[in-house]
Structures are given as C-alpha cells and as structure tokens.
C-alpha cells in the first residue's frame, strides 16, 4: 500500500471515496484490520483507514438499540452494554487469534461487514438479524442511509441485509445502529459425554426441537474437546456435546434438569456453571478448539449445512485425511481444519457441501492460496449476474475492496 487515508468524519469519508471514484484508485477499506486475512487479498494501492470513526453516539438501554461510529471497537461497546446488563445477542466472534493475529480486536463495522455470528445464531440470528440501520458512502461517492433505530421497519428495501456480509465491497459504513438485548440472568451448560458424531447430531436435534430454549448446541469430538481450557471438558478423554441454557435462575435450573432427562440422564451427563460455561462458549465462538491454539499453518474452512447433514459431510472430509472438525449450530456449522495444501482441498470440500446443501468459506489459508482458490461459495448463472449487477450499481468503478470476495469484482 502506497498511501493510507484516515478520515475522521463521515464528510471526510465522502471526500476520500469521491476522490477514489474520480481517479479510479481502488481502496482497501479497514477498521482495525483484525480480519484483514479473511477473504481474498484486496487489489488496491490505497488504504482507507476508518479507525477514526469511533464513539457510541446514542445508547438508550430501554429502547434496545445502540448507534455508534462504524469503527467503534467491540470492546468499548461490550463494556457499555455490560454496565446495563445488556449484550449483542448475536455474539460477534473474535477471530483475531484464529486468523493469526491478536485477540480482543475488531470493530462493530467489521463484525457487520463479515456478518459474524456466534453459537446463539440458532436462536437469535446473526449480525444481519440485529443490524437495524446505517449511514454509508457507496462506491459512487454518494452518502446514503437505510433502516432506522426501531426493530419493526419495512419502509423500503432492507439494504441493511445487503450491506451485512458484503465485506466492504458495496459501501463504506460510517455509522451503524444495531439491536441490543438484556443479558441472561444465568447461564448453564449441560454436557453429554462420549457420543459419536452421528449420535450427537440426533441429540442436538432432540434438544433444539424441545421447548427448553437451548441457546447453543455444539459437538466437540475428542480431539477438539482436548483443546479446551475448561478442565471438565478437556479431561474427559471422550467427545463432548454441549447445550447452553440461559434465562432467569429458576427457569435455567428447571430446563437443565429437563434437558438432562431428555438426553438420557445418567453418568455421562454433567453441568458447567458460570465461568467454565462462559469460557467454553467463548472457545467455541472464537474457534479456539482447532489444533490447540491455532496459527500453526493448518488451513481452516467454515461450512454451513443443514444440521442433520453435519456429521455426514464431516465424515466424508476427514476419513483418512488427517483433517479434523468440531460442530456448532446443532451440527449446521462445521469448522474443518486440515494440513495446508496449495489448493486447500477446495474441490473436495465444495463437492461435499454442494451435495448436502449449503456453502463453504475458506477462512484461514496463506494469501497466495486465498487468491488462487475461491474463498467464498462460487456463484453461477443468474446468481452471479445479480451479484455483479449489484456491485456495478453501488460501486461502478470497482474501487471498494476490489477482489475481496470474488476475483475481479
């Protein structure tokens, strides 16, 4: 990168994008840069550093929303929410360490641009479901907004959905509004030990199909469980299937008992309380259970499939290959890690996912591999045309994060 522009106001962002559009100078858009290694490397000479656009603008706990500068750190937002016993219910993952950098980094704009979601995805949704509105500058060098501060809003097209998960390729967000919710009074985790992957899928389907409002269902095969810092999990020498239950105290106790009974009870069921429970879900959310602490050069894929197909897909991709997995979202999210190869095994991975229904993302690999292999699910036919036309409409000069999602787009 030859130059970095660091605007401090929305007006300066507008000026910078206008300049880039006029001079056809592609911009690499970044907040804190904690997820720079996620997606393809951007083909740009100039960096647009948004880290000056910070600060919580409006936070009214009783209205259940917060408005903040796009590069406000998640740490600052979480601290403000904690003071009011609230949280971002979609649990934005901290992928810093997985991606080979530092932990505890990331901004709200980055979490939305990557449409992050944690284990609670199955109950409350992803960033897309909590993103209420924004101000942004499109690649046309024009300021526009969408949405508002209220949850129920169907006024015009829902551009928040378009921007969430677009990896900065359509518009530069300057200010975002998102939903916040009360933090649960109490959290506990029911552990079932020693299930095979297939049996774990069935157990998770049973729990998620019950009325016990499970807010996290993950399965850790023995190798993944061993990587946990929670001794009850690491020390079992068996696989661990975890079910999170949150809510008012008496309700949590009742539902944990009911879940234990539903899942067969007996000696192979345990419970985690408070800190241990929180730590385990943090490890699952931030993908810290693959090959110990990660960062050892293995490649990592993220697969989203119908939950009951999880074990089958994983079996196909791990049998006899040295690859390993763990599952979140009741089996619907597979984190797959494998020894590094020049093509990241992408054809095999995509074939397995296509047969099961879903999509795969190459989350960790060297920059050369990510530029050679499609990182996101390749699109064909009409889908590809629509995607290209949307990009053309919002960023006709192709100046915003070109190549981040798809080569040449």
């Amino acid at each position, binding site marked *: 990168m030859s*130059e970095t*522009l*660091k*605007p401090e106001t929305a007006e300066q962002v507008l*000026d910078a994008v*206008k300049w880039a559009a*006029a*001079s056809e100078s592609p911009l690499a858009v970044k907040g804190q840069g904690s997820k720079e290694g996620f997606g393809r490397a951007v083909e740009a000479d100039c960096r647009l550093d948004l880290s000056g656009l910070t600060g919580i603008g409006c936070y*009214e706990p*009783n209205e259940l929303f917060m408005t903040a500068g796009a590069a406000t750190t998640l740490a600052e937002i979480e601290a403000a929410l904690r003071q009011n016993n609230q949280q971002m219910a979609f649990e934005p993952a901290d992928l810093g360490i997985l991606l080979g950098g530092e932990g505890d980094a990331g901004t709200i704009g980055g979490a939305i641009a990557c449409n992050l*979601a944690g284990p609670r*995805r199955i109950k409350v949704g992803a960033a897309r*479901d909590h993103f209420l509105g924004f101000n942004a500058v*499109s690649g046309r*060098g*024009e300021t526009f*907004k*969408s949405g*508002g*501060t*209220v*949850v*129920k*809003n*169907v*006024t*015009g*097209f*829902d*551009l*928040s*959905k*378009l921007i969430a998960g677009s990896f900065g390729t359509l518009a530069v967000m300057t200010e975002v509004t998102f939903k916040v919710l*009360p933090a649960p009074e109490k959290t506990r985790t029911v552990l079932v030990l020693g299930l095979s992957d297939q049996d774990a899928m*069935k157990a998770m389907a049973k729990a*998620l*199909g019950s*009325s016990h409002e499970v807010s996290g269902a993950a399965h850790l095969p023995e190798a993944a469980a061993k990587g946990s810092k929670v001794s009850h999990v690491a020390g079992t020498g068996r696989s661990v299937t975890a079910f999170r239950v949150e*809510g*008012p105290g*008496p*309700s949590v106790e*009742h539902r944990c008992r*009911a879940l234990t009974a539903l899942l067969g009870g007996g000696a192979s069921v345990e419970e985690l309380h408070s800190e241990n429970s929180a730590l385990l879900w943090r490890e699952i959310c931030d993908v810290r259970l693959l090959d110990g602490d990660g960062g050892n050069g293995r490649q990592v894929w993220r697969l*989203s499939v*119908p939950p*009951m197909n999880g074990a089958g897909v994983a079996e196909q991709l791990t049998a006899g290959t040295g690859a390993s997995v763990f599952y979140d979202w009741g089996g619907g999210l597979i984190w797959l890690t494998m020894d590094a190869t020049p093509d990241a095994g992408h054809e095999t991975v995509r074939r397995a996912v296509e047969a099961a229904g*879903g999509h795969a993302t190459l989350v960790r690999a060297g920059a050369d591999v990510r530029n050679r292999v499609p990182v*996101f*699910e390749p*699109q064909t036919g*009409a*889908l590809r045309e*629509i995607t290209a*036309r*949307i990009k053309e*409409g*919002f960023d*006709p*000069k192709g100046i915003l994060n070109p190549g981040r999602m798809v080569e040449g787009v």
Partner: protein
Amino acid sequence: MKMPQPDAGVIARRAEIIEAMQAIVLGEGVITDEEELRVYDHDGLMAYKGLPLVVVLPETTGQVSAILEYCAANEVKIVPRGAGTGLSGGALPLADAITLGLGKFNKILEIDYDNRTVITQSGVTNLAITEAVEDEGFYYAPDPSSQIACSIGGNIAENSGGVHCLKYGLTTNNVLGIEMVLMSGKIVHFGGKHLDSGGYDLLGVATGSEGLLGVITEVTVRILQKPETARALLLGFPSNKSAGNCVAAIIGAGIIPGGMEMMDKPAIHATEDFVHAGYPLDVQALLIVELDGPEVEVDHLIERVDAIARQAGATHLSVSRSEEERQAFWSGRKNAFPAVGRLSPDYLCMDGTIPRRKLADVLQRIEELSQQYGLRIANVFHAGDGNLHPLILFDANEPGELEKAENFGADILRYCVEVGGVLTGEHGVGIEKRDLMGVMFTEDDMNHQQRLKCAFDPAHLLNPGKVYPTLHRCSELGRMFVHKGKLPFPDIPRF
C-alpha cells in the same frame, strides 16, 4: 393516489397476451371475464380498486417462469399477488399489467422435524404451516393477525410481523430459503436449510421487497417447539403515559415478553362491546403482557411484571388462570379491527413505528390531530416494539372524507418520522405510503434502493408504481458524474 399512466399499446395487445397466457396455463387458470376479474380488483387496502389486464393463476414454477419470460420479451408488466390480504395496496392491479396470483401454490412440500424446517409452496397460508406441525408440538412463530388467510409468500414480500415478533422475530428472522422466479424467467434459489449466505444476502433483500424483485414460488421456514406454557396479564392504567412508562420499565428490567400489546380507551370500549373480553372500562389505557416458557419461569416473571405494573400506577391487574382466560384476554385485541369497524362505515389503519419512549407524546399529538380533522380515532399498539396502529374512522360516502382521513394518516406518519420512527412497521409501503417516502429518505437514499431493483428487474416490469414515488430508468441511475483529477481534501489525515 396517482398511478402510472397505463400503456395503451399493451392494452391494445390484450387478445394476443391472453392467447400467449392460455398457451402456458391450460384450463381455467387465465381469467379474462370482467365479472371474474372484479374478485381481484383490490387487496386489503379497500379504498383503491382497479381492474387488471388479465389474471393468471399458474400451478407450477415452470409456468411462472414461462409467463415472466414472455412478459419480459414483450414488455408486459406483472403484479404478483398472494392471498390479497396486504394492507398497503401492494397487490393493487394495474390496467396494463397481468395480476399473477399464487393461490394454486397451495401445497406443503416437506416437513423436516430434525432440521426444524418446513418447505412449502408460496401460496400456503401462514396458519396452515403451524397446523401442519402442531401435532408434534411445533409452530411457525410470526403471526400476523391475518394469519388464517395470508400466504407465506405474501408474508415474505411484506416481511410481516405479528404480536409475537418482539421475542421471536419478524418474517425475515424466520425464513431460511426461497425459490424465486426473476423477471427474466430464470429460477433462482436463495438460502435453504442451512444458515446465512455464501455471497451477498439476497434472501435478506428479497424479504420485504413487496413484489418488486421477483415472484416467490417456494419457501423454507424454520419452526419452533411451542413454549411449555403461556400466561397473560391484563393491566389497566389511568393514562397513556403511565402505560407507556410500564412498557419501558418492563423492558428496562430485562424482560422480553412473548407479546406486549396496548389499547387506548376508544379501542378498549369498541372491543369490549364487540367480544365482551372482560376488559375494565374505567381505565384510559390497557396493556396485555404475555409471558411464555416453562411454568417456573412464567410464574417468576409474572410476579416481577406485576410489581413493575403496580409501581407504574396500574389500577387494574389480573392474571390469566387458565388457557380459556388467556384466550379471552387476547380475544379483544385480536378483534380490535372489526370491533372498531362497527363504529364507523370505514376506517384506515396506520402502521408507523416509534421509539417506545415517545408513546405518550405521539398519542397526544394524534388526539390533537383527531380534533383538528374532526375524525375519530382508536389506537392499538404493538407496545413492545413500538409499532402503532391508529385506526382513523371515516365515511367514504361523505364527499372528501377519504381524502381527509388520508391526510390525517399522513400527518401521523410524518410525526412518527419526526420523533425518530418510521413510516411502516409491518404493513409495507405499497401505494399507501409511497408518496411519503421522501419524508424518511433523501433522493440518494431511494436511488440506492432502486439500484438494487435494477439488478433484478432493469426494465421495471415487476409491480411498478408501488413503494417508490418515482422510478428512475436504470440507465439513468447507473450514470455517474465525476470530477476528473484529484479532489482536494486537505483535511483528511494521510500517512
């Protein structure tokens, strides 16, 4: 309400178009007789009517694809229609457009309890999905009050809500996938039984797009197990303000009820006269707060809400002791529209959303406007999420009254936006709020929304005249004016 000038050239080709449709949809699926077309001349926004060029009722996705392909090639417009229950005129026919009814897409295709999904054709009613899975204790959470009649495809087009969306989300949070036919005739699939998208979230943008982006033919939704139990509190207050404060205090205490509804005095009296729900008549505002979950949780939360309500000055408190009683508490609220309908020959239902804290302020303003316009009003309110439904009473047979009622409604919506809210929470823009879009959005805001439209339907053949006051040509929207050379921006720090 001004609609686009019908294209006389298309109307002149009517016979030819009918013939082409009859070649695609055999039998009785092409409706051309004026008497029969009248059935389709309006949707849930009764004040506006018009005859379509022709109505076509296809039965397969292949037929929908062939129809759209023909229409794209021959520049014929399409108005998609689900069950016709929409309240904002989204399915209002156009004289030069085919109304494409999805009523024959009425089959549930697959129920998958393990993955907790149902795949259904788009014309199936919202309630039919719940009915198909309730033997196993499951349900589909979004429950618009028209759920007995409205179609799931229409729910997606409008991103419908309902009384339970405070806790369980709107349609957009409960839909996993769709099959959609584009104006080109191409069939696309967004999403499926898995979560999130491998590219841009086209499922997300199609939801709430009011029939402007494509025709939805198949839908995958998630289903949930019903809560173990549900109980409701009926809370009466001496003022709108104290009821509003109670709502804020409940949320502030970290409680998200399954439903939290409010009615003002005229609405309470109208519904009590109609269904005899047992509502107190000596209060100014009534709240229904429903708590659901395991019994121990519901008991615990009822105690807490009870205490909060007393603190907020509730003068009437009762808790449902049986399922019958809970249903009775709801019966009034659920019949509020027909109940208010008995008071007056016609009514208009508004749908703004406001920040909860502005409730008393907005109700006060509505009361002032009511006096100014000389039209009566009753208010029902999804209090938990700030979605207000003022019902404006009028008589369409009195010359000028419809216009007066519409102006009154527009003033309410302008005020909603002024206090930080939005024009529509769940009914959609359609034609009803189309000309108010400029109150909320700048030209640039709307142009960016229309660029999304251009990516799907560049010739503007799908549902024109709805949602946007002016549809710009896509070639015009695509043009970009740039100053060549480096713009000076000395203020931006650079490194």
